């Protein structure tokens, strides 16, 4: 099984609202068992893409396949195998936590009661409480229980932790790692759109950065941290710099130098070593820093 069938396959997807191209020729492939990050600025087209996966929107052109199926024609088959946590969760306000979970379970052929109870206890959610009385954090927790209890093959998260306090965010991620991912690792795929990237850093296997509806960068997380590096150097005197190939950004203040390297950190380090620095360091950029550096990358590619 070198190449298992992808869980999500998006080919040349476009979708416009009036004259605005929200998604414009997007390609993306998510393999099973992975945690895939989908990063982009506000308005980059993340939510539009996710809505096309869930058949909440129809693609203008291009194809979307989930488990190899078309969400438009095989909506039930697709939706029965995935769960979705949006950023703002709405429940029927007259229902209690217990009612809501029963209601959600009634749509599912499989529902893990033990897991549901574990999570209710972990989050200390009172099953008798009305959903209208829940805080934003508790609503998200309830949505997460509703998404994980059916043990779906694909968990789609759209800005799941925005607006939550740090402790709830932490618990949310631990739950995705522990309760969800550990169940049957080969059949547990996560697709998460977020701009709180640092919290998901350890979870992300691979990611796509989307910009103006197009894919700007797709990389494995380890490969990305290997490719994008920050080099800091200090010299006895302000040096005259030779050409620095692959430098996304060079900042020099007197004797100090900072370079963002795009795949050429080894060569750049060698070049700088020849200048006899007093201090020379190289560290990987975090995924969040890489995301922030995309602007520079875009200019470098243009």
């Amino acid at each position, binding site marked *: 099984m070198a190449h298992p069938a992808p869980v999500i396959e998006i080919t040349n997807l476009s979708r416009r609202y009036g004259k605005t191209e929200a998604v414009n020729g997007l390609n993306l492939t998510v393999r099973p068992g992975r*945690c895939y990050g989908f990063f982009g600025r506000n308005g980059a087209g993340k939510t539009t893409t996710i809505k096309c996966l869930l058949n909440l929107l129809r693609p203008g052109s291009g194809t979307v396949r989930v488990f190899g199926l078309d969400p438009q024609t095989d909506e039930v088959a697709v939706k029965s195998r995935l769960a979705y946590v949006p950023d703002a969760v709405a429940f029927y306000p007259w229902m209690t936590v217990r009612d809501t979970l029963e209601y959600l379970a009634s749509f599912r052929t499989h529902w893990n009661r033990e897991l549901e109870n574990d999570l209710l206890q972990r989050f200390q959610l009172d099953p008798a409480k009305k959903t209208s009385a829940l805080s934003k954090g508790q609503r998200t927790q309830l949505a997460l229980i509703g998404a994980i209890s059916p043990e779906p093959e694909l968990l789609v998260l759209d800005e799941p932790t925005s607006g939550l306090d740090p402790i709830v965010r932490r618990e949310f991620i631990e739950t995705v*790692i*522990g309760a969800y*991912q550990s169940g049957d690792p080969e059949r547990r795929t996560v697709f998460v759109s977020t701009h709180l990237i640092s919290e998901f850093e*350890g*979870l992300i*296997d691979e990611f796509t950065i989307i910009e103006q509806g197009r894919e700007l960068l797709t990389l494995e997380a380890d490969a990305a*941290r290997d490719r994008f590096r920050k080099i800091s150097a200090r010299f006895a005197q302000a040096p005259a710099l030779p050409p620095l190939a692959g430098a996304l950004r060079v900042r020099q203040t007197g004797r100090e130098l900072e370079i963002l390297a795009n795949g050429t950190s080894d060569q750049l380090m060698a070049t700088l070593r020849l200048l006899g620095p007093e201090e020379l360091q190289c560290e990987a950029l975090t995924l969040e820093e890489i995301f922030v550096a995309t602007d520079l990358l875009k200019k470098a590619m243009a």
Partner: protein
Amino acid sequence: MIFQIDFKAGKPVYLQLVDQIRYAAAAGRLRPGEPLPSIRPLAEELRVNRNTIAKAYAELESQGVIETLPGKGCFLKVNSSPFTKPVRDKLLLTEIDEAVVMAHHLQIGRDKFLALVQERLDYFERKSTQHDSAE
């Protein structure tokens, strides 16, 4: 065992775990027969993908550092490399060469280099026996 993950280290996270476990074994902090943390709680604690931990353990198993007992978990093995002696020598030489090259560029001479190696060997031996007598 306490692990330190650093995303800025520029080394894949699973290799950081591999290195730390190998180091702990060499320094006697982890002894043969002792269990490694289970994947799920460790993944939750470090907030890394469970695949990352599984990959680290698989790597350690292929290096013959740990063994997996079905249904029981992973355990540190009695120190026995699966490689033949010539392969072991060659693997170590590659690492030594790197240190030699580094020493050259840092202008550290032969005597100082050898003294440092002695010192590190003593350090690990001392640590290892300390942990033994602490039992």
